[in-house]
C-alpha cells in the first residue's frame, strides 16, 4: 500500500510556480554567496594596496592636458608655458609642468620640471630671465637657455593666491605684490631690495615699464598706479571710479585695457604716456566671454566671444573705430589667455592644451603647440629612461 502511495506521489508534477520559486531562491542565495566572494576579493586587494604598499596602477595614460599660462619675450625667441595634465595614477595624478619654448627650435620644447601649483608666469622682455609665481606663495626663477636648468627659489610670500608678479625688461629685478605690499628683488642674488606698502588692496596685475624705471599696477578696486622703481614712491595714479573685472597690459606697458564692473561692463583703454582714457565702443555689442589683450601700439584689441555654432572665437578690433578687423575660431577648449607679443603676433592658449600663434597681418597660424601630445611623449620617454618616479612632484 505504502509503495503504491509513493508511486502516486512521484507521478504528480511539481507546480511551475514552485519550480520558479526554487530557482529564484537558489539564484538569490548564489548571488549573496558571490557578493561575499567579491567582498573577500575587495578586502584582499585593499590589503595588497595599503598594507603592502604595492603600486601597480599604470602611469602611462594621459587623459587631458591644458595650458594655463604663457609668456613670451620681446624678441619672440623664448616663451614659457604652464602645462597641466592628468595621468592615470594612484598618486599625484595632476601634474603641473613648466615648459620652455625656444621658438627657433619649436619642435623641441624644454621640460623644466614640476612646480607646486604655479599661478603666474612672467618673462623679461630682453633678457633670458623668467619667474614663476605659485599658489603656495613661492616664487621661482629660471633662465631661458637650450640646456634645461632647474628653477631656483627666490622668495616665499604669505599670500600666494592674491600675488601678482613682474619681471623687468632687462631681467635685473623681480617684483611681486600681494594685497598689502609690493616687493622688489634683485634676480641675480635674490636679495630683497624694497618692500613698499600700498593701500590699493588686491592687485589685478603688475608690470615693469619698458625702461624699468616704473612699476605699473592695476588694482581690483579701480586704481592704475605708477611706482618709481628706484625710489619706491607712488609717481602717478589714475582713479577709474569702478571695480576692475579684467585688465591687460600691452607689451612695454604703455597701454592698459580694463573691463569696469557694472550692470553693463565697460571696456576702457588708458594711455599711460598721455593719461588719456578712452571708452572702447565696439561696433558689434559683445558679451565678455574670456580674456582680452591689447596690442603694443594700442591700436588693436583682442577679445573672446563664445557662440554655440562656432565655439570660442577670438575677435580682433580696431580700438579707434570700433570696427571688427578679423576673427579666428579656436576649437573646443576654454581660452585661458590671450597675449599680443611685441611683434604683433597674437598668442592664445586654452584648456585643451593648445597654444596658437596667429599672425594677424597675414591671417595665418604662425606657430602652435599641443600640450597633450607633448606630455604623452615626454612621459613615455621619461618612463623608459628614468622610470615613473621621474614624474614625482618636487
Amino acid at each position, binding site marked *: 500500500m505504502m509503495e503504491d502511495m509513493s508511486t502516486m506521489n512521484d507521478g504528480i508534477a511539481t507546480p511551475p510556480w514552485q519550480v520558479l520559486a526554487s530557482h529564484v531562491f*537558489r*539564484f538569490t542565495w548564489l*548571488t549573496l554567496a558571490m557578493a561575499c566572494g567579491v567582498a573577500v576579493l575587495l578586502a584582499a586587494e585593499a590589503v595588497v594596496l595599503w598594507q603592502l604598499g604595492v603600486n601597480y*596602477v599604470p602611469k602611462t595614460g594621459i587623459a587631458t592636458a591644458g595650458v594655463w599660462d604663457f609668456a613670451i619675450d620681446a624678441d619672440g625667441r623664448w616663451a614659457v608655458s604652464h602645462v597641466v595634465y592628468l595621468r*592615470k595614477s594612484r598618486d599625484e595624478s*595632476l601634474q603641473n609642468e613648466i615648459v620652455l619654448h625656444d621658438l627657433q627650435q619649436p619642435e623641441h620644447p624644454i621640460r623644466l620640471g614640476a612646480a607646486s601649483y604655479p599661478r603666474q608666469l612672467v618673462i623679461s622682455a630682453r633678457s633670458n630671465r623668467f619667474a614663476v609665481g605659485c599658489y603656495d606663495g613661492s616664487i621661482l626663477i629660471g633662465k631661458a637657455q637650450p640646456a634645461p636648468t632647474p628653477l631656483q627659489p627666490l622668495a616665499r610670500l604669505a599670500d600666494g593666491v592674491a600675488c601678482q608678479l613682474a619681471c623687468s625688461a632687462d631681467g635685473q629685478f623681480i617684483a611681486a605684490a600681494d594685497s598689502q605690499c609690493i616687493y622688489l628683488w634683485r634676480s641675480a642674488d635674490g636679495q630683497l631690495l624694497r618692500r613698499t606698502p600700498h593701500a590699493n588692496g588686491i592687485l589685478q596685475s603688475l608690470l615693469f615699464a619698458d625702461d624699468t624705471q616704473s612699476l605699473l599696477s592695476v588694482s581690483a578696486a579701480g586704481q592704475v598706479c605708477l611706482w618709481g622703481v628706484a625710489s619706491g614712491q607712488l609717481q602717478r595714479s589714475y582713479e577709474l571710479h569702478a571695480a576692475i573685472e579684467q585688465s591687460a597690459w600691452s607689451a612695454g606697458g604703455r597701454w592698459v585695457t580694463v573691463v569696469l564692473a557694472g550692470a553693463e561692463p565697460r571696456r576702457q583703454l588708458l594711455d599711460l604716456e598721455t593719461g588719456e582714457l578712452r571708452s572702447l565702443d565696439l561696433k558689434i555689442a559683445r558679451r565678455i566671454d574670456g580674456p582680452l589683450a591689447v596690442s603694443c601700439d594700442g591700436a588693436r584689441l583682442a577679445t573672446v566671444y563664445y557662440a554655440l555654432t562656432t565655439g570660442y572665437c577670438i575677435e580682433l578690433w580696431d580700438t579707434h573705430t570700433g570696427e571688427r578687423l578679423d576673427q579666428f575660431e579656436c576649437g573646443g577648449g576654454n581660452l585661458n589667455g590671450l597675449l599680443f607679443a611685441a611683434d604683433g603676433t597674437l598668442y592664445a592658449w586654452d584648456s585643451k592644451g593648445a597654444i596658437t600663434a596667429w599672425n594677424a597681418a597675414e591671417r595665418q597660424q604662425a606657430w602652435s603647440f599641443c600640450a597633450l601630445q607633448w606630455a604623452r611623449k615626454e612621459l613615455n620617454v621619461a618612463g623608459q629612461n628614468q622610470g615613473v618616479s621621474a614624474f614625482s612632484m618636487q
Partner: protein
Amino acid sequence: MLTLVQGHRWILLRSLMMGAPYRTLWFAGLLLFIAAVSVHDAVLVVLLEDIIQDFERNPVGCWLIEIAQGSVWLFVLVKLLGTSLVGAGQVMIYQWRPHLALASTLALATFQLGLLLYLSVG
C-alpha cells in the same frame, strides 16, 4: 597511424582538462578571475575618483557617475552587484548545462583579460 596517435593524445588531454572534477576547477578558476578583474577595476575607479570622469570609457559608468553627482559609489555598487549576479547566473547555468556554462565563462574571462590588459598597459 599518426592521426590515431594525435586523436588519442587529444582524448587524453581532453579527459585531463575537461573531465568532471577538472571542469569544475576550470569553471571556478575562470569565475574567480572574472570577479577579481571586476574588483580590481572597481578599486581603480575608487582610487582615481577625482579624474575618473575623464578616463571612464563605459557610457553606463559615466551616466552612473553623472547621476551620483560626480561620486563613484553608485557606479562601484552597480558594478560589483552586476558581477555577483553574473557569477550566480553562471553557476546556475553550470548546474544545468556544464559545457555551455564553461564556454560562456571562458568568453567572459577572455573579455576580462582584455580589460585587465587595458587597465594595466594603458
